[in-house]
């Protein structure tokens, strides 16, 4: 069955990203209008809009399997693209689509299930001789068992959700008396996030680099990799900046890791786009972490350096076409960096800062790609993630990409919420980042003062003083004789009282 109409089971920038490619391929698209974002930008890219604003439901529409299937049937969409997040890695949803003769643009339900269950994925990796951090082969049911295993493999260890991903349900434990508390937190968080409280334990690799390989496989059994991405700039396992390629890999290591990534994908007969994540320690030992069975936020940097449209490949593969790209023809050209500009307050520990985006303008230089679902007037709502835009910058090499990135960041103009921009502006000027010697622990080491120069503080102080003058000193002088309290201005008196 050839795909003629795709239901986009997602929102924001990724919905737009998918629709752009679909249009180019002459496939029509259906987007869903929700009550949370009735004026969202992604709606204007769809050929058809399904209005779901009247529907009152406990769960967001993008998580409502039955309802999504019925929308697909009603709108006669013969395929569904789940994007990332939401139901992208839900094997049951993928199966439901197939049961209703709707093409699920992604891997098979079986591959999603096996890779989504970390315990099964670990066993598969073990059988295929993929290096892994030591740990439990089965789920751990209580903290006593957790302590036993941790003592065997040695602290620090990391507790992970068996059905997890994206950093949720993960806790690092450094000594046995922390285990009880962390075990409870991790399994509660896992239950809440993934509806499955089971957790497992593995050796925690201190200060690794996060390296992942982009995989493409077709339904005929061909699997290739499109090189790596480095995603070591993270905070609490949430990625902030990604680049491709990685300065930590040479051709030899890239070949070795890529070969194993393809091998693990083949072990589940993987087709569509997927990502195999590894940790790389300072001695260049690498360990399999997990496989993500979806298109990822950071797929853009791979697209920039390979020139391959990954969404197009996903659609072609879902159509049953054979991969036309051979491994030996995959070349990484130049360097690409992606900055995730989120509505977050970096000075308050990256706390989400939802609100209305009043002004938004992004650079339009030739070396810049912007993927966004937000425009001036859009709101960042707390129902969804806090992403404003992905700023993807390229260069001939890493040095030039960083230089271009600096320039591009200074051109971004956003008003209305606080953003992660100050973090990136500081990061690209940091020596360790420029040298490429950073690890996943990097953000914790970064300077907590975000301003770029004393001048900026001086200018902010000037503005505060200007406001003070306008509010308080409209008359030429105020009575401020320190010796004569009875004649002190009410304003100054008030301030004195506040100090006690």
């Amino acid at each position: 069955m050839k795909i003629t109409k795709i239901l986009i089971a997602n929102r924001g920038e990724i919905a737009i990203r998918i629709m752009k490619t679909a249009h180019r391929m002459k496939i029509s698209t259906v987007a869903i209008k929700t009550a949370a974002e009735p004026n969202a930008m992604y709606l204007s890219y769809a050929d058809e809009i399904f209005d779901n604003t009247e529907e009152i439901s406990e769960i967001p529409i993008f998580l409502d399997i039955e309802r999504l299937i019925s929308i697909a049937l009603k709108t006669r969409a013969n395929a569904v693209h789940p994007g990332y997040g939401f139901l992208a890695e839900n094997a049951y949803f993928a199966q439901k689509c197939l049961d209703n003769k709707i093409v699920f643009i992604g891997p098979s339900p079986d591959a999603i299930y096996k890779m989504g269950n970390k315990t099964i994925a670990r066993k598969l990796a073990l059988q295929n001789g993929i290096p892994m951090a030591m740990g439990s082969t089965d789920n751990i049911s209580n903290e006593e068992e957790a302590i036993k295993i941790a003592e065997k493999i040695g602290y620090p260890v990391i507790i992970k959700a068996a059905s997890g991903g994206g950093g949720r349900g993960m806790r690092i434990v450094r000594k046995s008396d922390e285990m009880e508390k962390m075990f409870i937190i991790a399994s509660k968080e896992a239950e809440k996030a993934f509806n499955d409280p089971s957790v497992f334990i593995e050796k925690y690799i201190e200060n690794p680099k996060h390296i992942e390989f982009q995989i493409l496989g077709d339904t005929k059994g061909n699997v290739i990799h499109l090189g790596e991405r480095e995603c070591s700039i993270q905070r609490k396992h949430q990625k902030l900046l990604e680049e491709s390629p990685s300065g930590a890999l040479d051709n030899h290591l890239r070949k070795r890791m890529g070969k194993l990534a393809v091998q693990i994908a083949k072990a589940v007969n993987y087709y569509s786009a997927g990502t195999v994540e590894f940790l790389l320690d300072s001695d260049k030992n690498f360990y399999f972490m997990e496989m993500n069975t979806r298109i990822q936020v950071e797929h853009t940097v791979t697209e920039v350096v390979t020139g391959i449209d990954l969404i197009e490949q996903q659609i072609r593969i879902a159509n049953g076409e054979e991969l036309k790209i051979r491994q030996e023809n995959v070349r990484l050209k130049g360097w690409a960096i992606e900055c995730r500009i989120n509505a977050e307050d970096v000075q308050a520990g990256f706390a989400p800062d939802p609100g209305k985006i009043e002004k938004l303008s992004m650079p339009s230089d030739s070396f810049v790609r912007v993927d966004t679902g937000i425009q001036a007037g859009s709101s960042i709502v707390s129902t969804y993630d806090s992403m404003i835009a992905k700023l993807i910058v390229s260069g001939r090499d890493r040095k030039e990409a960083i230089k271009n990135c600096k320039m591009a960041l200074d051109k971004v103009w956003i008003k209305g919420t606080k953003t992660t921009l100050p973090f990136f502006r500081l990061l690209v000027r940091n020596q360790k980042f420029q040298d490429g010697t950073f690890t996943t622990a990097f953000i914790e080491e970064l300077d907590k003062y975000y301003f770029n120069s004393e001048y900026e503080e001086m200018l902010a102080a000037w503005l505060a003083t200007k406001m003070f003058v306008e509010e308080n000193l409209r008359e030429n002088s105020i009575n401020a004789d320190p010796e004569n309290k009875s004649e002190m201005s009410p304003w100054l008196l008030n301030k004195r009282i506040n100090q006690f």
Partner: protein
Amino acid sequence: MNDKLRINKLYALSSENRKLSFSLPLKNRIRIGKRDYVVQLKSDEKYGTYILWKNRKYPVEIVRSRQNKYEILFNDISYTFTVETPFSMQRMKVLNTGKGKTEKESLKAPMPGKIIDVLVREGSNVLRGEPLMILEAMKMQNEIQSPVNGQVISIHAKPNSNVMKDDMLIEIKVE
């Protein structure tokens, strides 16, 4: 001494206690080294409010002001200043002498959200970095960690309760 005094200077005190002084009447110029640079506060439809300085635009916002305290957002970074006159500066110095260090640490909610769990009790001894509460905001669970070694004096939030930004969560006696 005359009862009316003219103020010829203002100080902006940063939250890190840096003192930046400006002479009155306030000029649209800032001196860096030996040169004066023009600084302009402007506003237009495309950019909103901004400061123009050395041919570059910086987005600015006055986030809030209370009496002489101003929170300024400049180029996406928050700064908090209290603006003082020479006289109020003098008084502050007098008032601050003899004030001991704070022995109590009050933890406030860093963002609005829901308290998922409280991991300590009143009277619990806690170590720096120890998780005290789990606060869920935008689907992420955040640990509220103790900034100090000490003993929990009081807890102001219950599991499953919603909190606003800056709501008091817990008080710890510093050891």
